[in-house]
């Protein structure tokens, strides 16, 4: 431990000890007359705490610093932790003893509440909420009270103590009837009233404070009996047995992550919980990000609160205590924010995100079916400090900025009181001063599920079932094609059969309905791509903080819809690309300024639909990449030879080559152990196309083109050497007919000048090595059928122009057949890695055709060109 902090703690404890003793003495005098059990309890608590503190200070005094370090574990860790917390939060501790004392007191005051917390598990949600509100109020109340301790008179001490006592009964309420409660209240107020103000200056602020406090307590008391059932149900044993610090300390011990119960073993309920919690977590995540931008927006807080609350309730029901506890702490924090007692700073949000990350891990453990053993304590601790500590630094800031010490304290005091007021009234659900948000929240709490239902009338369907449905529709589509061709065959070739109009009509109708079904089923699988984009806000935020860069992420087109599997799988490559942009693209603010750019870098993430493709763009205005540098690097790595002629764009795309992206790069693309080649592979696997454009100083743009869906694709059927192949229509630009004379040669490559562009040509039969087919069984099998390829005349060539519009490639084929919808199927584990083949598809008449993998085909031909050149 830091020696400085240690000294500070010692000083603090020394300061507090006499204060506490003084107060205790006062209480003991009074209690001699009439000691209510609660008071006795509190006194005991305080005593114990006191003893502990004295032993602690004693053990520290007279020890050298290093020894003290060793000694540390001997004393109550929790205690030390709490002290530490108050220290940390107060920062410059020496001049702020009062504040520290306040924090300490807050801690102490908070502790008798702990039994209530323990009980909340047994309460209904609303009641838990109400109790929670109270608990959160208490530290505040305490904070402002002891803030004045410097001028503390006996009376005030007494008033303060009365207040403290007031909190204890709240926790022990189960024994109290309404009457008793009011009696207690009277009692509490009594000491304050009995002792008339003695001194003037110091008294004045204290008096209204006391009143406020009293009214607040009253509100609390009133609220309490509203939950009698739960109170009765709550185990009494929970309250008085533990000492206060033990109670608080227990909170900071590891608790079993899971507590087995019946719900856990119900798979369908568990599934519901998991899917629900995923959604809720996403909601919370989004909302927190928005909150950071707009900390005063009550609507967002309410949203977070509701989601957090539902999640907490659910996990509690299932016995996932770890989740429940973390969520609970977060809820506390949000409650403070909700009640204007805490303005979320980036640090607060960081802590909250820590909590969220932890929750995600815990939820993952739920999905995996067993506790993961993650420690919740550090985060729980951080959360509770964030909740408790923040007000203190605020007060301290006020104290340091103003010259006269006593005045700021007074100034600081009324502010929280004012804040406490609406909180108290909302807790008492009085309509008078409660903000509309509170009312709204009340509704949300009562029926969070009902509210959700009205928002979206959807049902959850197992994705597996949906996949089966999609596959079946795929089969039906094939059947339809087959059906139609049979009908046509019958009509044209067998005119003697009287089909009648109804048959043709039925076939047509069937076709039309099938189209509709297909459309719908495809839409069912479509989800907005925004689902994949949302998490990036968080990624950028974290990255910019850790890299000390200023980065804005601008997302557009998140409404564009994409197949669910694609949305799920595009996330990883996108994250990788975005990280690259942050890490290596966007410069540090100073560098940017020097370069005459806005110090805040921008990353644009956009999506839009182009035909049956989705185009996703990641654009940054960072330092960009120099094609020449990349080229040089590639030569060094032996990827290309010195003589290889490459366009700038080709050079840039070299970074996607496996083996390029290793450490020690001038361009520093990647460096995370996963290369850009993996990104490229992932995109290719999704039948997508990846493109890179960059200029030094200007930034980098990465474009990803994805098919809308993987399930059913429109394809163009072509024939080469008697073999039929399917080319997915999303990579087809156009098809043309050229004469062999028009083909020119550039080195080894055949090209055709198409309008303004030079079109490199690939002969499909060569590219697919169809000559090897000679003598194969399928060849022998087909020889029996008409040898169609003999009929192909080579005075005209068919060229299918494929690829990206600005960079097309021509595929020379013998014949263009037709355009057809088909379901691309895997050809089984033995046929996984056939070059340039994306899969197989069954045509209407039962023949299997191979679906060409156009990007791979292009790459292969380019690669060959390069190899030949090299």
């Amino acid at each position, binding site marked *: 431990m830091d020696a400085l902090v240690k000294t500070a703690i010692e000083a603090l404890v020394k300061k507090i000890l006499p204060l506490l003793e003084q107060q205790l003495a006062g209480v003991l005098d009074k209690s001699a007359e009439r000691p209510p059990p609660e008071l006795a309890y509190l006194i005991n608590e305080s005593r114990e705490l006191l003893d502990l503190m004295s032993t602690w200070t004693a053990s520290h005094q007279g020890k050298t610093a290093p020894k003290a370090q060793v000694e540390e574990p001997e004393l109550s860790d929790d205690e030390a932790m709490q002290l530490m917390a108050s220290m940390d939060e107060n920062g410059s501790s020496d001049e702020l003893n009062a504040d520290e004392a306040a924090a300490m007191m807050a801690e102490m005051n908070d502790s008798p509440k702990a039994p209530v917390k323990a009980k909340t598990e047994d309460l209904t949600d609303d009641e838990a909420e109400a109790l929670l509100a109270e608990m959160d109020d208490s530290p505040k109340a305490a904070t402002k009270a002891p803030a004045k301790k410097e001028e503390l008179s006996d009376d005030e001490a007494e008033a303060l103590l009365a207040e403290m006592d007031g909190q204890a009964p709240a926790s022990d309420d189960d024994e109290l009837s309404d009457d008793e409660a009011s009696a207690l209240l009277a009692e509490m107020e009594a000491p304050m009233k009995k002792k008339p103000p003695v001194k003037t200056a110091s008294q004045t602020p204290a008096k209204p404070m006391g009143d406020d406090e009293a009214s607040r307590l009253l509100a609390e008391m009133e609220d309490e009996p509203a939950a009698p059932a739960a109170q009765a149900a709550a185990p009494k044993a929970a309250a008085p047995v533990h000492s206060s610090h033990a109670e608080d300390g227990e909170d900071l011990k590891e608790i079993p992550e899971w507590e087995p119960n019946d719900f856990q073993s119900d798979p369908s309920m568990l599934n519901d919980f998991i899917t629900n919690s995923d959604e809720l977590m996403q909601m919370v995540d989004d909302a927190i990000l928005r909150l950071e931008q707009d900390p005063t927006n009550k609507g967002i807080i309410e949203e977070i609160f509701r989601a957090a609350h539902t999640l907490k309730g659910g996990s509690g029901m299932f016995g996932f205590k770890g989740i429940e506890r973390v969520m609970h702490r977060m809820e506390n924090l949000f409650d403070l924010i909700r009640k204007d007692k805490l303005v979320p700073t980036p640090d607060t949000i960081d802590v909250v995100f820590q909590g969220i990350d932890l929750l995600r891990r815990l939820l993952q453990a739920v999905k995996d079916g067993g506790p993961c053993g993650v420690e919740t304590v550090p985060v729980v601790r951080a959360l509770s400090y964030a909740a408790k500590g923040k007000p203190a630094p605020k007060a301290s800031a006020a104290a340091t900025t103003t010259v006269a010490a006593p005045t700021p304290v007074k100034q600081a005091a009324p502010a929280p009181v004012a804040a406490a007021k609406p909180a108290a009234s909302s807790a008492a659900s009085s309509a008078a001063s409660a903000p509309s948000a509170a009312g709204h929240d009340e509704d949300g709490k009562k029926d969070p599920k009902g509210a959700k239902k009205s928002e979206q009338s959807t049902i959850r369907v197992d994705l597996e079932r949906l996949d089966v449905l999609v596959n079946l529709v795929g089969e039906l589509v094939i059947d339809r094609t087959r059906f139609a061709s049979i009908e046509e065959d019958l009509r044209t070739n067998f005119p003697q059969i009287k089909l009648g109009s109804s048959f043709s009509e039925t076939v047509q109708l069937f076709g039309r309905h099938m189209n509709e079904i297909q459309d719908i089923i495809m839409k069912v699988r479509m989800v907005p791509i925004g689902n994949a984009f949302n998490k990036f806000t968080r990624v950028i935020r974290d990255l910019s903080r850790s890299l000390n860069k200023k980065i804005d992420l601008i997302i557009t087109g998140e409404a564009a819809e994409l197949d669910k599997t694609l949305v799920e799988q595009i996330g990883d490559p996108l994250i990788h690309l975005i990280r690259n942009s942050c890490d290596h693209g966007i410069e540090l603010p100073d560098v940017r300024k020097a370069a005459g750019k806005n110090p805040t870098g921008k990353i644009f993430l956009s999506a839009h639909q182009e035909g049956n493709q989705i185009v996703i763009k990641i654009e940054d205005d960072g330092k960009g990449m120099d094609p020449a540098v990349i080229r040089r690097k590639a030569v060094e790595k032996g990827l290309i030879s010195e003589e290889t002629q490459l366009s700038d764009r080709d050079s840039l795309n070299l970074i996607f080559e496996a083996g390029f992206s290793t450490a020690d790069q001038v361009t520093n693309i990647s460096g995370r152990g996963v290369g850009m080649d993996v990104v490229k592979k992932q995109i290719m696997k999704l039948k997508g196309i990846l493109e890179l454009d960059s200029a030094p100083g200007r930034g980098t743009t990465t474009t990803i083109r994805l098919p809308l869906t993987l399930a059913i694709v429109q394809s163009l059927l072509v024939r080469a050497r008697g073999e039929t192949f399917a080319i997915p229509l999303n990579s087809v630009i156009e098809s043309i007919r050229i004469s062999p004379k028009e083909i020119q040669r550039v080195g080894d490559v055949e090209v055709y000048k198409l309008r303004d562009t030079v079109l490199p040509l690939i002969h499909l039969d060569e590219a697919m090595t169809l000559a090897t087919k000679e003598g194969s069984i399928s060849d*022998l099998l087909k020889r029996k059928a008409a040898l169609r390829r003999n009929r192909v005349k080579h005075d005209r060539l068919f060229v299918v122009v494929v690829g990206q519009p600005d960079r097309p490639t021509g595929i020379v084929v013998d014949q263009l057949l037709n355009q057809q919808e088909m379901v691309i199927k895997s*050809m089984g584990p033995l046929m996984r*890695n056939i070059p340039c083949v994306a899969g*197989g598809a069954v045509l209407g008449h039962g023949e*299997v055709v191979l679906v060409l993998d156009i990007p791979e085909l292009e790459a292969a031909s380019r690669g060959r060109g390069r190899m030949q050149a090299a």
Partner: protein
Amino acid sequence: MNIPGLAPQMMDSEHSMFSIRGDLDGGKDSQDFTAVKQFIGLLLGKEEFLLPIEVTNEIIMMNQLTFVPRAPRFIEGVINLRGTILPAINLRKMMGLPNEEPTLQSRIIVTHYEEVTVGLIVDGITYVISLNEDQLQQQALPSRGNGSELISTISKRGNQVNGVIDIAKVLAETGIDYQAHDELEDP
């Protein structure tokens, strides 16, 4: 009917061979199933081989086969089995025999091994045969590039000896690591 590679005296001998040709239910009237194993007799060129019936799903006509360029060796192409695309292995090639034009007797035996379903192209089907344990002998043959490496067991029926094809070895011959789960598998 004269079946090439099959000695005529085998047809009416006392050997435990069921004379129900090409019928997969051929073993139905068999007395004791516990002691016997059933095999499908298949022809490759002139020679008869056996294939354990447990690995066999069905036998289909060979009327369509799509050539797959650059497929793993011995894989002739893919077939469509009621909407599922399956690779077909050319057993003749594995046995070192030249390709011949498929005949009306040519069949594809759809077999499965672990997670792999694959078709085996054969020149014909003879019988479903039940053999006792003592008619089988574990015997690996020296590899001569003529398919002997596909044999793990020898069947003895009187003076007739047939090799039993081991599907695992057939798959191993293709040189594909079919067990590796490629993450690039189609979603």
